[in-house]
Structures are given as structure tokens and as C-alpha cells.
């Protein structure tokens, strides 16, 4: 409604955004809470009075202040970037204000905490929220401009430098996000709120950078130097344990992320490339896990053999792959979402069979515990090691293994995608009949997708049981299948980094939300809904999807025209009315 008031008056935009920016800075300097909470002072010196420490504002108040400064600066930036950037910065500031205000209200016992109570005044949150809204409104009031793209090309070494800096910044952001709020627990009850506030800040910053076109440019540069980007990213992954995020908790979590990301990439072959919805995928991971458990010298395993790990991986991949082909074989007859239910059925059958210790291979309800840790050239996988004088957290070797496996699986995925096989998968996804008419043996190619995906999951499962030290049927529930699918879709279907980002989100988010104890999963569910609401194509959509979205805005005309012609075509093409029933019978 307010937006409408200023919509036709771009002249108001700049003054409004400057006022908003100034107010954001003022809001940051104002106290945010009228008293110290009972547990301990709310972070970022939120009870400080105006100008107590004008330049010593830490934490979320610093974030608000920075966003405020940015809003003012953008008002004087090139016109094309003003609207989007201001709006994004405003949303970020608003989110920070809302998160902190909400937390203060809940913990402080009422609105008095963020307004006035007991003779004290604290309007920081209110002022910041109002200012943020002003920035958003100002952002929408700027004349609409198409998204900015930079046609900047630098010399190769310079572009490499840009990439190194960008990835270093990314690593810093990841590490900061992981450690935002501290490790929480009883000693630090505000960790959850601080984390959410930090995420809100990042949301604003990245939205702002996106508005300036910088992110698009960097990703274009990365696209130009894909191999180099991959190397730098891999290096970043290896450096992560050396950062402040290299605690055992995060290394352990990151290992799990790696294992699940590798599985999710495998699933991405089935779902993202070949377009076959799979709701029982975790079963393949389970098969790999139980194969590995039986072959790795666990005392309770019925086989009692202890094979080298690499061999175990290969066997796990083969066995899981064979099962994948078996499960995939109904694809020869069953189409679409009917197939999804076949895979769901297989997942449930696997679960029950594992629970009942089928063929004595799963340990049944007792699971297969006591799987010995992996041996990395004489060092057990869960030991802490020292590299370059830095002592790294225990389990870092598993983390490195997970990184290597994810990297290999990514290469495998990328290679497959840009090959005859990968194109056939995508063709099947796009139009199965047309693919068949082009000579693609669709049945075989779909079974192959299942086989490859399942083999990858088998490998991941084999790694997972060594990290968990137990292979229990309880690890492979339907919910886990859905989690994997969520990772693929959240990240962006068919996208290689997407699956990793999706898996990371699905693990990091609940882990960081631990501070909300009872409400943890509830917030998680809400987060899933919100992410899909605002980014239905996934966080890092596949290139094709990106192009598709760009196509819809930039070339909407041609699309529409094509559609109109298609409709006209439809009306005219009443020839061969027999076709449809014919197709049915031809298929069944």
C-alpha cells in the first residue's frame, strides 16, 4: 500500500532511502533492550544507551549500521543498480530487526523489552524496522531497471585473482556462518538468535551484491574458468579445517554433509537428469552400508572378513548398482510418478527386510555395531592430526575422505552430463517419445541412470557406516530418502553444486537451530516452505534453468508468440484423432 503511494514518484526515492539509511544507523546506535535478560545480557551490548559507544557497536547492531551505510551509499550509485540493491539491503535490515526483536520480546516477556519499561527506553529495533521498511519502499520507488550485467573481461591472471578472492570470501562466509553465535549450549543461550540474525545480514548483503550485478559477473568469470574454479573450490574445502569452523562438531557435520551430498548427486542423476522421481533412494545407501559393515571386520558381522577399504567401496558400489538396476527395471513399463511409488515401495521393503535381519546380513534390530575406524596409512580416521603445526580436530581425515569422494562424484556427474549418455538422460526427461524416435533406447538408459545413481549411493553408504561405526536399519528410513530428495531440489535440480549446497543446508540448519530446542524441527519445516516460496528453482539452479528463467523475462515475446501459434496449431490439428488412444495401447 505504501509502495503505491510512492510508485509514481521516483523523485522521492533518493531522499527516502537516505532518510532510511540514516535511521538505520541511528537505530543501530539506540539500545535494543530495556534491561538485561534474566539469563545473561543479550549480545551485542543491546542495552547500551545512545552514544555510549558510538564506534564500538558490535554484532547485529554493527550489521544494521553497515546496511544503513550501504543504503546511503547506493543512493549515489549508478541509477541502474539503485532499486534492486536498496530493496535487498532493506529486506536484510528488516530481517535482522525482526529476528532480534522477536527474540527479545519472547525472552524478555513482552513488548516492553523493545519499547519502554521500568523507566528505560529501547527503540533500536523499532526504529531499525521502520527504517528498513523505508529502504524497501524507496527501493521499489526507484524507476524499474533491467538487472545489471557487467560485460567486463579482464586479463586471465586478474580474473584468476578475482576468483581466488571470491572463493576466499566465500570460505570466510561459510566459516563465519558455521561459527555464528558460538557453539551454543548452556553457556551461550543466544547462539540461535545470533545465528539467525547473521543469516539475515548475509541475506541482505548477498541480495545487495546481486543487485549491483557483481555476483552475476563473478559467476560469469567462474564459468569462463571452470577448471580453475573447481581447483580453488577444492582447495577451499581442504582449508576449512584450518579456519575457526574447524571444530570437531563442524568437521563431523561436514563429513556427514559430504556423504549425503555425494548421495544427493547420485540421486540428481536419477531425478535431475533423467527426470525419474525416486522416493526410496536411501535404500541404496543402506545396501552399501550393510555391505561395507559385513566386509570391514565388525565383530558382529556374520561374514567375519576384513577387506581393504577401497575394495569394500567397489563391492558396495557394485552390489548397490545391481539393486539399482533391479529397482529401475520397472521403468521399462511404469511411467512418471507411478515409478516414484515403486521406488518408495522398494525403500520400505528394504527397511523392513533390514529390520528383520534378512539373510543374517543386517543384524536386524541389533544392527551391526563396532565397525572399526578406517585406517589412513596407519592413522585411525577419528584421531586428531597435526599439519603444518596446526592441530586439526579429530575426524578430519574422514572429512578429507568425504571431500575427495564428493569431488570425484562431482567430476563423474559433470562428465556424464556432458556426454552422449547424459544427453540421452536429459532427452528422456524432456520428451521420452521424441527421445525414442531419435534412437535413444529409453528403457536401457533409464535403468542405467538408476544403476549409476545407486552405485554412488552405495559408495556413500560405505563411507557413512565407518563414520557412524554402526550400520543400523534405523539410519535408512523413508524420511532420509525425502531428505536426500530435498537436498537435490533445494539446491536446484540437475545442478552440480546445488546438491552440495542443498545437503549442507539440510544438515547445517538443524544443527544451528539446536538452540531453539523444542521448536527446532518446526522452524526447519518453516524454513523449507519459505525457501521454496522465494526460490522455487533451487538455490543454485542448473544453467539450463537459469537460462530458462532469463529467457522468460528477456524473450517473453517470442515465448508468447510460440505459445499462441501452438494453440492455433492445436485447433487446426484435429487430424489423427486416433493418435492418443493409439499411443496408450502402443505403450501398455
Amino acid at each position: 500500500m505504501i509502495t503505491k503511494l510512492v510508485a509514481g514518484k521516483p523523485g522521492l526515492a533518493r531522499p527516502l532511502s537516505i532518510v532510511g539509511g540514516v535511521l538505520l544507523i541511528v537505530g543501530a546506535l539506540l539500545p535494543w533492550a530495556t534491561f538485561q535478560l534474566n539469563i545473561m545480557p543479550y549480545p551485542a551490548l543491546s542495552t547500551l544507551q545512545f552514544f555510549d559507544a558510538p564506534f564500538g557497536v558490535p554484532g547485529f547492531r554493527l550489521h544494521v549500521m553497515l546496511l544503513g551505510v550501504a543504503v546511503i551509499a547506493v543512493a549515489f550509485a549508478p541509477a541502474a543498480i539503485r532499486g534492486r540493491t536498496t530493496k535487498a539491503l532493506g529486506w536484510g535490515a528488516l530481517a535482522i530487526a525482526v529476528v532480534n526483536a522477536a527474540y527479545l520480546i519472547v525472552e524478555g516477556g513482552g513488548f516492553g523489552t523493545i519499547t519502554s519499561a521500568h523507566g528505560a527506553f529501547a527503540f533500536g529495533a523499532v526504529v531499525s524496522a521502520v527504517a528498513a521498511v523505508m529502504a524497501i519502499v524507496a527501493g521499489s520507488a526507484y524507476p524499474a531497471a533491467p538487472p545489471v550485467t557487467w560485460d567486463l573481461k579482464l586479463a586471465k591472471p586478474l580474473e584468476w585473482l578475482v576468483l581466488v578472492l571470491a572463493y576466499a570470501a566465500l570460505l570466510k562466509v561459510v566459516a563465519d556462518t558455521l561459527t555464528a553465535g558460538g557453539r551454543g549450549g548452556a553457556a551461550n543461550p543466544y547462539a540461535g538468535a545470533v545465528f539467525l540474525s547473521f543469516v539475515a545480514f548475509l541475506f541482505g548483503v548477498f541480495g545487495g551484491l546481486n543487485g549491483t550485478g557483481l555476483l552475476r559477473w563473478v559467476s560469469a568469470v567462474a564459468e569462463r574458468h571452470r577448471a580453475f574454479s573447481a581447483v580453488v573450490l577444492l582447495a577451499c574445502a581442504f582449508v576449512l579445517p584450518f579456519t575457526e569452523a574447524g571444530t570437531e562438531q563442524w568437521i563431523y557435520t561436514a563429513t556427514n554433509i559430504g556423504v549425503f551430498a555425494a548421495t544427493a548427486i547420485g540421486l540428481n542423476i536419477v531425478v535431475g537428469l533423467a527426470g525419474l522421481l525416486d522416493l526410496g533412494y536411501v535404500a541404496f545407501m543402506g545396501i552399501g552400508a550393510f555391505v561395507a559393515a559385513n566386509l570391514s571386520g565388525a565383530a558382529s558381522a556374520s561374514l567375519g572378513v576384513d577387506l581393504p577399504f577401497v575394495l569394500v567401496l567397489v563391492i558396495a558400489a557394485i552390489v548397490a548398482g545391481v539393486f539399482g538396476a533391479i529397482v529401475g527395471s520397472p521403468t521399462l513399463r511404469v511411467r512418471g510418478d507411478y515409478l516414484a511409488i515403486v521406488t518408495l515401495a522398494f525403500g520400505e521393503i528394504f527397511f523392513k527386510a533390514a529390520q528383520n535381519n534378512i539373510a543374517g546380513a543386517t543384524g536386524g534390530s541389533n544392527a551391526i555395531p563396532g565397525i572399526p575406524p578406517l585406517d589412513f596409512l596407519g592413522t585411525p580416521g577419528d584421531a586428531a592430526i597435526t599439519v603444518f603445526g596446526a592441530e586439526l580436530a579429530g575426524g578430519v581425515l574422514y572429512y578429507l575422505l568425504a571431500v575427495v569422494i564428493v569431488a570425484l562424484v562431482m567430476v563423474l556427474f559433470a562428465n556424464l552430463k556432458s556426454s552422449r549418455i547424459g544427453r540421452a538422460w536429459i532427452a528422456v526427461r524432456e520428451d521420452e517419445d521424441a527421445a525414442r524416435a531419435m534412437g535413444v533406447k529409453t528403457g536401457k538408459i533409464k535403468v542405467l541412470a538408476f544403476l549409476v545413481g545407486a552405485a554412488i549411493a552405495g559408495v556413500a553408504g560405505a563411507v557413512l557406516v565407518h563414520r557412524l561405526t554402526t550400520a543400523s536399519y534405523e539410519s535408512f528410513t523413508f524420511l532420509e530418502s525425502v531428505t536426500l530428495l530435498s537436498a537435490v531440489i533445494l539446491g536446484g535440480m540437475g545442478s552440480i553444486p546445488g546438491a552440495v549446497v542443498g545437503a549442507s543446508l539440510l544438515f547445517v540448519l538443524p544443527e544451528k537451530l539446536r538452540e531453539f530446542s523444542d521448536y527446532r524441527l518446526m522452524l526447519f519445516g518453516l524454513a523449507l516452505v519459505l525457501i521454496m516460496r522465494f526460490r522455487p528453482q533451487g538455490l543454485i539452479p542448473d544453467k539450463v534453468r537459469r537460462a530458462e528463467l532469463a529467457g522468460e523475462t528477456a524473450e517473453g515475446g517470442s515465448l508468447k508468440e510460440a505459445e499462441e501459434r501452438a494453440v492455433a496449431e492445436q485447433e487446426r490439428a484435429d487430424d489423427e484423432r486416433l493418435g492418443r488412444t493409439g499411443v496408450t495401447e502402443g505403450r501398455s
Partner: protein
Amino acid sequence: MVTLLQQLVNGIVLGGLLAFITLGYTMVYGIIQLINFAHGEVFMVGSYAALATYLWALPSGIQSTWYLALPIVILAGAAFSVLVAVIMERFAYRPLRNAPRLAPLITALGISVFLQEAVRNFFPDGTRPKAFPEVFPEGQLTFLGVTVPASGLLLVVMAIILTGALQLYVNTSKLGRAMRATAQDPDTARLMGINPDRVIVLTFILGAALAGVGGVLYGVHYDNINITIGFQNGIFAFTAAVLGGIGSLRGAVVGAFCIGLIKTLAGQYMPGGTAYDYVWIFVILILVLVFRPQGFFGETERVRA
């Protein structure tokens, strides 16, 4: 023989329960191709709403008079389920109408987790299973040695009446025709002046109302409810919808009864016994789909762009 008859009765009761849920699944799928995993939770909140109504809204005089209390709690449960479903459709699914096809699946999952946890956190003592009040006379009918619980009879009768009424509605009413038209071809339906948004909301409402009634009758029959009843029964309901041919109302009901019967009969007669009854459901499902890929009553898959 008595055992066989008894198991048939048990299977039919279970099937009647699933029928309440499966119709919502199949209608929503038929119209927007969404596997609405949150539909099971709609069923669950219906039963909790009925419980809350009984405990905190009904005077004790009505509480003890089952023929007053039962309709009231059924209406309350259905109404709340509808409310939840409409909010869900409006704020979570509708904005995703043009999103990639699987995006709403994640939304559905998020809603499912959210609703379960919300009930657990906000319903008093929601963490543990809740006893459901007696709003229907206890008792069994016994003939030929076969026991039929009265509540089970109620459940099956209601299931048949309501699903029949729904079929009739969808087949004969104007909105029902609009629904079928939208399911067949949303674009053409739009050209014919049908507002797809309204039709979709209606679909959610009908499905949710049935699920809500089912949730209440679940409580009546089993005398207790917990937060996971939705998810588990939802999976089976979805399976039933597929077995019957997704998008087909008749198929959904038949599928639901089949699943109920397979579960009890397989537990009784198939190798592995009750430990593997779930497995047999899914084995039979796979076999059916391999030989009849569109389920019992399904139309062949439309190829979607």
C-alpha cells in the same frame, strides 16, 4: 474360516480409514500433479481439533451424550482440517503454481514437519499419545464368531457414504465438472471460463474435509491419537491412490480397501507373517504396476511439458 472372515473384516475397516485420506491425495494429484505429503497431517490435525473441541468447548452434558457430541466433534475436526488445508494452499502451494514440478514437494514436506511439530509443541502434553474420548458407544457385533467393533462399522459406513457422496458431487455438480475439466486440461478449462484457483481450492477443501472426518473417526475407532498417525497413514493412502490409479476417485477407494485387505491377509497367510505384512503391500503394489502401469482405474499418464 472364521479367521479368514475376521481378517477380511479387519482389512475392510483399515481400508475404510485409508479411504478418507486417499481421496484427498488423489484429487489434489489429479488436478495439480502434486504429491501432497502434508495431506496426512491434515488428517492428523483434524483428530486433534476434534479432541480439543471435546475437551474444552463442549459442556459436560453434551460430552456425555454421544449423538450430540459425535456430530459436533466431526464437524469441528473437518472444519479445522479445511482451514489448515486452505491456508496451506493459499500461502504455500499457490505461489508455486508455475515453479518447477518438484518444488511443491519440498513445501509439502516442510508443512508436514511443521504441522507435526506444531501440534507436538502447542497441544497441551502433545508429545505423548492422547486418549480419545468416547463419543460413540463401545460395543461389538458378533456373528459366526466374527467380531465387528461398532466404531469400525461406523467408520466403514461413513467412508462409503461420504466417498459415494463425493463421487456424486464431482460427477454431477457444476463445480465438480469444473474440477474434472481442470484436471483434464487446465489451459482449456481456463479458456472455458473456469477459474482454476477456485477449483483448486475446492479440491483442497473437499479432500481436507474428508481427511478431517477420517481423523475424527480414527480417534473414535482406535480411542487414541498421536502426532505421527498422519504421516504413516498418509504414505499408505498415497500408495492406495496409486494402486487404484491416481486421479481416479473410484480407484482411490478401491485401492484403500485393497491395501487394508492385503495388510491383514498377508500378515495372516504370507511367509514372514506380520513382520513382513508391509513388505507384501509393496510387493503387490509393484506387481500390479508392472502389469497395469496405470493402476486399477487410472488413465494413462498424460505427458507433461
